[in-house]
């Protein structure tokens, strides 16, 4: 399958990227691991693809009580980041290890995944549980946006078409914290039938789930009232049960890690 006709432009810097993205129906491409598949299916038909993959927006850095992740950081780079191996943020590397496959992890980026907003993608659940925030740039300027406010529906975010993510900030949980990710995957696509990320801190716990609703969400209650998505492969009733199981598993693992970190 071949994408519909499109033009290609490589952004030389962030301002150039924003300038190019001013064209209606243009689309930013980073790793392309979400965008190119939907272009091949001709579900996405951008008039112009703006290649932002060579911008200097990658890397993982700890500063001022936060871990800043460049949106162009690939899954494999996340897996290799030392700070994401440690108990408080271990969910990030753990989740990244299970995403796609080796080839996809070599190119796919965390920023691309978040803005693609696939309701079954794994990492948004982790970012929700950890309370991450996005920093956004547009020609109008900069703003910050909580991940929970960004994800509003399947493949739908509150980002403006000309906005780019420039940073993903994850608050460093206090000493004595642990996080974990657990999921059950669809055997073909590898996407989560249900996935859950958990953070256990001395001050409290938070769990977010993915794959079971229109968008990943932070768990409140026992899921009996949550609107759960179902299909012929995995009916809603099953996904609801599964979400409880993975939430329990993630939380137990997070608590175990928190103990180690004490």
């Amino acid at each position, binding site marked *: 399958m071949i994408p*519909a006709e499109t033009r290609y432009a490589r952004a030389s810097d962030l301002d150039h990227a924003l300038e190019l993205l001013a064209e209606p129906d243009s689309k930013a491409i980073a790793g392309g691991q979400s965008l190119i598949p939907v272009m091949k299916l001709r579900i996405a038909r951008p008039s112009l693809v703006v290649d932002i993959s060579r911008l200097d927006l990658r890397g993982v850095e700890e500063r001022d009580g936060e871990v800043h992740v460049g949106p162009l950081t690939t899954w494999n780079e996340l897996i290799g980041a030392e700070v994401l191996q440690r108990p408080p943020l271990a969910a990030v590397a753990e989740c990244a290890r299970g995403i796609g496959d080796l080839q996809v992890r070599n190119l796919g980026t965390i920023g691309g995944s978040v803005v693609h907003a696939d309701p079954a993608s794994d990492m948004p659940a982790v970012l929700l549980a950890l309370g991450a925030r996005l920093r956004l740039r547009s020609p109008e300027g900069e703003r910050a946006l909580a991940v929970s406010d960004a994800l509003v529906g399947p493949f739908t975010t509150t980002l403006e078409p000309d906005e780019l993510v420039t940073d993903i900030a994850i608050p460093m949980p206090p000493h004595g914290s642990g996080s974990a990710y657990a999921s*059950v995957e*669809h055997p*073909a696509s590898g996407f989560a039938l249900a996935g859950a990320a958990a953070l256990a801190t001395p001050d409290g716990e938070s769990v977010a789930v993915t794959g079971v609703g229109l968008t990943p969400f932070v768990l409140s209650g026992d899921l009996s009232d949550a609107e759960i998505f179902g299909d012929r492969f995995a009916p809603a009733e099953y996904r609801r049960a*599964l979400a409880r199981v993975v939430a329990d598993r993630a939380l137990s693992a997070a608590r175990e890690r928190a103990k180690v970190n004490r």
Partner: protein
Amino acid sequence: MSDTLGVARPRLDAPEKVTGATRFAADGYVHGLLHARPVLATEPHARIRGFDTDATLAVPGVVAVLSAADLPLAGTGTDRTSEPLAREEVVFAGQPVALVVAETEAAAEDGAELLVVDYEPLEAVVDVEAAMEPGAALARTVEDSDDEGGDLESVHGQVDKGQEDDAGEQLSGNVLDRVTREQGDVAAAFAASDAVVEATFRTPWVYQAYIEPQVCTAWLEPSGTLVVSTSTQGSFVTRRELARAFDLPLDRVRVIAEPLGGAFGGKFALVEPLAVGAALALQRPVRLVLTRSEDFAATNPASAQVTHLKVAARADGTLTAIEARMIVDRGTNAGWGVEGATSLLVAGPYRWQAHDLRGYGVQTNRFTFGAYRAPGAPTAAFALESLLDELARELDLDPIELRLKNAVVEGDVGVSGNPFPTIGAVEVLERLREHPLWAQRNSLPDGEAVGMAAGHWPGAMEPASAVCRVDADGTMTVVTSVADMSGVNSGFAVIAAAAFGLPPEQVRVVTADTASAPYAGASGGSKVTYTVGPAVIRAAEAAREKLLAAAAQELEIAPGDLEVVDGVVRAVGAPDRSMTVQEVASKALRFGGRYEPIEGHGGSAQTSGAPSVAAHLSHVRVDRQTGEVTVLRHVIAQDVGRALNPALVEGQMRGGAVQGIGWALFEQLDHDEDGRLLTGSFLDYAIPTAERVPEIDTLIVEVPAPDGPFGAKGIGEAPVVGAPAAVANAVARAAGTRLYELPMTPPRVWQALRS
């Protein structure tokens, strides 16, 4: 010879394949090539009112839009070769209705996207059981007026068709075939049994999932010869089918079977008529490479099946009676079905006192059924072997002992009415019983269990021939028409080397095209090694006679006193008096030479079958919370007759077992209620990945086939047959509840655990 046969050797084609040097059918450069993109029906059952081609033809690079009327087809049959594009009636969603042909692949795809097809929807027949009811809507309203169409059954193995129909049953016109096999008083046998179990088993449509999508390139030589370069299991059968469909003389069609990127039963004259039709219509070379989505939607997967099965035994484990009613969803295949095969194979390699076996081939608006590795067998074994475990449980017998007690031996009359030839059922079960995993089965953690099951494949036969030629450098070339689906060429090399007396490294094997190759049937039915192998032996022996005749004169020793060892012709008992094969050959192959070329032709026409039995142990863990099943370890024991190259034999055993795990846990082509495919990509249709399957232990059992080449049997199909049932039996023990439908997906297992 002793160090030629039975030694693990790399495949002959391995060096080319690991370096990317192998040219598969999509890889060759053809001058002036056009690219075709099929447009697939979006309706499961409809009449085509017409096409709006304006937008498509306006795309730069698009050369033509072709519908059925544009292809120079001769016949009026409704098989896929005779009707590669739907004429007027669409009979499944995914059926090709038009071809867009363009100068580039991109232009063809751009054009295909814009083609508008006007359909008049008809009632779709989707439920195979409802389709059988008298008065049910018909899946096809236009009758097949061309009786010769779709004669592809012969390539898939010999299974007898059973007895005449039972005329008393009222069935709709969707029932294309009924097969009945009865013997003995079944009711009385059930009544006299100590345990009777019955259940209904369901298996889905399953996709061959060869990694190379179907592909064909066709062009006309200036001489008028049609050349077809294709990924096919059979060059001669493809030639015959194309000649029939387009009414061409056989000698004007030259079919080249390119290296196969997997096939498993699915690659028979499906895309060739499309590429050929376009090439003939446009008088230009045309290539059609299906996308994966098209391959899922438009090809010919294994039938879905519903099996009602009842079996019984006496307290000592002696099997008494078997009764089966097996409904095979043929989709739109009017030419043949597996109802005959599956209702025979459901009896397994076991003795029964009475049987009543019925198979029904039913048309629906789903796909066109085709062959997939051991057609009809995994589904039959899933039902039978599940119930044999239930019998063993009820009678408190060891599952392997129960099977051993009833396993057929040579001379036992099967439900076909014919005696079994040499068969290794007992030997395989005994070997499996010795595996340590079987002893460990009662000391596993909670949630884990070991299941076992057996299965067999009767094999197949077709006359075949081969040529062996020795060149002046002393190497041999074996020429056949065989598409190398499973490593058979590497088997031919050791067969020829052993029969002639050359080191196997000095033998190469060439697949020639239909213009020059000696005849052989298609690769399928586990018949290639068994039928072409003897032809290779005879060809090598004939070449050896030429060699000895020449060497006899050179050495002044009678041919009968010469032997050929490791490429050297020498006097028996006086090895100093010798010449190399190269020396003899170079004397023959030159101007003024005095000897005939060192070359031989050999043929075979096997008349006795050589069934292969394989049995499995599967060790699984069931996650009671999520329903996930993990296969932790899997063992297969198989009677292969003689392992000519154990490495390749083990490869077939492992590959087959893993495809069986796919049947068991992952694979289903699922349609929605309207008959539209829901799982038409690798995003939705799961095949086993490296992560989801364990190591497969292989136990090679050798019960030589009397007529096989050096005792070898066909081995490709048997390993898949019993694997799904073994996994199912393990899941039944681990979960404490049995699943009667494949695949055993996490949601289904979870549901079964709850109820």
